[in-house]
């Protein structure tokens, strides 16, 4: 299993639109992806799970991916989290 810590770039945190972009990408990854903030871990493909973490701007979160392509998936998802989707 591969892990990476990412700092959230979106100005208003991982809510609504940024959360939906991220969870859809996680669902397409084809391998189980988990997202952890503090003590709590959720399925990264679940919009309700991700929203329930209450992730704000500048929060550090941990992505964990299982499977062979773990690093490629990590690269893609980490890039999404470190993009400011509220700036567009």
């Amino acid at each position: 299993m591969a892990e990476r810590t990412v700092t959230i770039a979106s100005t208003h945190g991982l809510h609504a639109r940024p959360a939906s972009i991220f969870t859809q990408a996680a669902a397409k990854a084809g391998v189980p992806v988990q997202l952890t903030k503090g003590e709590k871990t959720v399925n990264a493909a679940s919009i309700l799970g991700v929203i329930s973490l209450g992730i704000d701007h500048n929060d550090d979160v941990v992505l964990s991916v299982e499977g062979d392509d773990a690093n490629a998936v990590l690269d893609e998802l980490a890039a999404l989290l470190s993009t400011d989707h509220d700036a567009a």
Partner: protein
Amino acid sequence: MTFTGVGIGRGMAMGTVLQMPAPLPEPQDAPSALSVDAEKERAAVALAATAAGIRARGERAGGSAKDVLEAQAFMAEDPTLSDDVKARLETGKTAERAVFEAFASFRDLLVSMGGYMGERATDLDDVSQRVVAQLQGVEAPGVPDPDHQFVLVARDLAPADTALLNLDKVLGLITSDGGPTSHTAILAREKSIVAVVGVAGALDIPNGTTVIVDASTGAVTVDPDEDARFKAKIAIQERASLAKAPAGPGRLADDTAIPLLANLGSSGGAAEAVELGAEGVGLFRTEFLFLDSAQAPTVAEQQSQYSALFAAFPGKKVVVRALDAGADKPLSFLNDAPEENPALGLRGLRALRANEQILRDQLTAIRNAEAENTADVWVMAPMVSTLEETRYFTSIAREVGLKTAGVMIEVPSSALLADRILVDADFASIGTNDLTQYTLAADRLLGSVASFQDPWHPAVLRLVGEVGKAGAALGKPVGICGEAAADPLLAVVLVGLGATSLSMSPAALADVRAELRLYTIEQAQHFAELALKANSAMEARAAVSASASS
């Protein structure tokens, strides 16, 4: 039998009633008679079917409703939710109860997060109800969408309901709750839907019953006789032909000219506005050029858009409002800083001033487009609160070469000092929605304080009167370009307070034009006096209505 409520507008409709299905009762927490696996199967099938049904509705609805529904479909398919439902089923609950509890726990979580996420809670409730209805094999609650036209009856409509309303099918609206400032009333006014709100007993009218909805009297006639049906049919036809008839200019009974103008949000609506008899444009919102873009559009890009609009109004007045960003429509390149109170923050002219090049580019583009056309182009600044801001804007506009520069009056401070502001500004245009919000100190986007958002409030009307007096003394035009101008009787009051032109969504023009023709300027001034003397918005509305119908 006849019920009475408060009519919105002047229209009439006849059709068969369709009640909005009531919310489902909470599923009972009784042990399931089926096996855990059988309940899991039922839940999985219902969740998938509901997601598919919501997605299909989204495809049919299109537009912004599609996005809302797509998000709801994702909620029904959510893996965390599905895990939560399965865990609850392991304890022997029914699928109905497990689904209900799982959605409710996420709903509570969202509510506790507040703000934007809190507002999504109603979406979760809606999806939850649909899944439970699917499981029970009953009709899903929410706005019905049959294949025929109908009169919708509901307790009240939520914004999420109205987004899904198929306006081609809805002949009229009746609500048992809600007043003249409810969300339903605002929607009805904006879209020109025949509506009567606050009708006690409306929820007891059976589906399929024929009703006549008369907004001008607030009467709902249930199961009318042949004679009443015939009269209603004639009245509806007459109104329809009146609306299509070539519309003359806006005039009072004594022939005082009150130009009726259109509020437009893009050049696309221009042809329809002309068809409905708009004598020009009283408010051209320019935000559409800037939204969804990371930076301001170039002068040339803007110029072609302005020119397209001006070309639709040869020789007519077109008032362009400079970019009004902030509060409900933030633009990241203008103001990126999070604010505690965005309505009181760096918005309107304040935000433009902090980015003066954007303002100069916009005014230059307007000036260039004016040169290509014959329209009489006026420009105005949004959310001006001081005399000094007025001078700032008008001096730049004149420097660029625009000949008519004015300000929007949306803040009480500029209404109170209108006698000085109008010395410098060429005209004033009153934005009644924001003026009401700032006068009553009630956020107009917040449902919990929506009852304060009533432009009939005497405090708001007094401020409008200040601007009217200043305009008359200095010989400067005073326009109205808010929701208030679209309310026919209130439009007459505003004229009595000194408004010299009225601008509104084009759908409202016909009713306001007809209402103005009924009264002289003296009568309008008398209505204004009655409204100013009232102690509340409700009293003002009642006093003027009583005088108008006597």
